[in-house]
């Protein structure tokens, strides 16, 4: 596939990837620091290029329900927002998960709680991977660390969404959304024809031909035993994701005595801290979870038997660290270092935290 080099913001990369990946519809509502997603789409006018629908909705609540409507009709549809907007979307997300609708969601996280700040944060981890809406459900969650990954994960997101009939979340943050980097973009992937939709999504509501029964998209079941059965089906799907779809990256872990566990922007800062640590003679490496659900439990369990300590580095007061502790079962010291509320840690702070909290302790 031909590749073209561009310089773009992470948010623009999401929009560009949407157009080039055969997305049928984007529904959104402006919020800092992700507004460039819709701004780029509106400027590019993809309805003239690919037929993609772009609509500015009256609220995040409306946006997520537009996603529900489009996804239920078998189309590749998406939305993006930032933390306060994503909180408003939680109702829609649990309905999407319950009705098993494939779609793409993007959260360019900012500092909370409440209206919080507009600076980068990773404090929406719990909301995303534990299920911010009601009921037992999971979002397949991808954590990009570069503008290139913002682009690539849109494609991977569609693949996972339709493979598992499940909503996919790209959990980014204000730094990755706003930073400009070079990225390679791919050729335009054509949108699915209505015939392809009927073939790939035979469950969807594209209009009932006389040859089949009517399709119904709903998350409602009045009989409890049937709803339990539906829940078992969902759980089996999530278990399959945990078995087959875990993705992570390791940096300098071969001989590491200490390992940072960090995703997204924090992983890039931690990677620099690895370099600083190595210069000081500290054998430190980095494990970067790429999928946050499914979480890379096995490799963390493995590392915990080999290293002298793990430091979870997050722009939160300590969320992912709970999953690291569960995976590592306290086989080695596990600590957390975070700056939050929109503050980004420096690599020096991260290295110092490793020395203070684990090496000297």
């Amino acid at each position, binding site marked *: 596939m031909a590749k073209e080099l561009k310089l773009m913001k992470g948010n623009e990369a999401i929009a560009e990837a949407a157009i080039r990946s055969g997305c049928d519809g984007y529904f959104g509502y402006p919020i800092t620091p992700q507004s460039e997603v819709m701004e780029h789409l509106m400027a590019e006018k993809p309805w003239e290029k690919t037929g993609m629908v772009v609509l500015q*909705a009256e609220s995040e609540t409306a946006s997520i329900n537009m996603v529900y409507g*489009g996804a239920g009709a078998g189309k590749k549809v998406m939305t993006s927002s930032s933390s306060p907007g994503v909180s408003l979307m939680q109702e829609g997300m649990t309905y999407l998960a319950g009705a098993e609708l494939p779609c793409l969601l993007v959260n360019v996280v900012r500092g909370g709680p409440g209206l919080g700040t507009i600076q980068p944060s990773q404090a929406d981890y719990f909301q995303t991977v534990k299920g911010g809406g009601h009921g037992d459900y999971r979002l397949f969650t991808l954590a990009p660390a570069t503008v290139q990954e913002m682009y690539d994960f849109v494609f991977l997101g569609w693949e996972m969404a339709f493979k598992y009939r499940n909503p996919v979340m790209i959990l980014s943050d204000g730094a990755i959304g706003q930073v400009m980097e070079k990225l390679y973009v791919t050729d335009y992937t054509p949108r699915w024809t209505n015939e392809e939709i009927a073939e790939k999504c035979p469950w969807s509501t594209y*209009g009932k031909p006389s040859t089949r029964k009517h399709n119904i*998209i709903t*998350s409602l079941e009045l009989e409890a035993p049937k709803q339990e059965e539906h829940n078992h089906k969902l759980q089996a799907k999530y278990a399959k994701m945990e078995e087959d779809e875990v993705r992570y990256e390791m940096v300098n872990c071969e001989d590491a005595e200490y390992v940072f566990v960090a995703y997204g922007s924090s992983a890039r800062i931690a990677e620099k801290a690895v370099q600083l640590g190595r210069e000081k003679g500290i054998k430190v490496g980095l494990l970067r979870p790429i999928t946050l659900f499914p979480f890379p439990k096995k490799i963390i369990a493995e590392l915990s038997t080999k290293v002298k300590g793990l430091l979870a580095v997050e722009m939160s007061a300590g969320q992912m660290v709970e999953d690291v502790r569960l995976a590592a079962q306290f086989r080695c010291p596990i600590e957390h270092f975070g700056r939050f509320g929109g503050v980004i840690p420096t690599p020096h702070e991260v290295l110092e935290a490793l020395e203070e909290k684990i090496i000297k302790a």
Partner: protein
Amino acid sequence: MFNPDIIKPENLVYKRTSVLTDNVMHYCPGCGHGTIHRLIAEVIEEMGIQEKAICVAPVGCSVLAYNYFDVDSQGAAHGRAPAIATAIQRLYPDNHTFTYQGDGDLAAIGTAETIHACNRGENIVMIFVNNGIYGMTGGQMAPTTLIGMKTATSPYGRDVALNGHPLKITELLADLPGTYYVTRQSVQNAASVRKAKKAIRQAFENQKAKKGTSFVEVVSNCNSGWKMTPVAANKWMEENMFPFYPLGDMKVDGQKVSK
């Protein structure tokens, strides 16, 4: 005596529409929902648009509407049907997406979605069944509950000081530039059923011609929630609901109808 020999195509004067499924409806005897469902289904059949019709069902008494319409359907979260229908219709512009909502769904929790879908002029048909009460949850006060009307959450009657005013959302929608057709109908007797069907047909014809939003309110009863017999409920509706919610067209061909 029943004579089976008379069952011949040439003797057929009426049959149940094939756009309704064989599922037994759960609605209370005397409720208007069953009639309104039938009218929509008949219009879909007569226009030959079953393969293009997409129903978006609400939360409320008609939450299971998708079990009765033999068309592809989606069940919406409470109040969100117009947003869902917006996306479906924009993604399939030649389809016939329609919403079916009650007063709590459309005029309370979903007010924003209702107003904005109408104001954008989405090419959808919206059916609004207004019986002035929350039926499914057991008869609580609705946004359209009349002043003085007793419900489970206004047991001494709706009091403006305590509960605010009933919302005439249909009048409000008729003022929006995006709506092309806005009408208020009822289905309590044969004449009103015929008029309501004509209005529903007009709404789907407008959609076919891509004219924008067509909105059909049907003022209906809730004999269970109102705690009346079906006959008494219809009488009460005529005497109390119709004066406050007057029947007739409010907007035709994009023009307000002057009264």
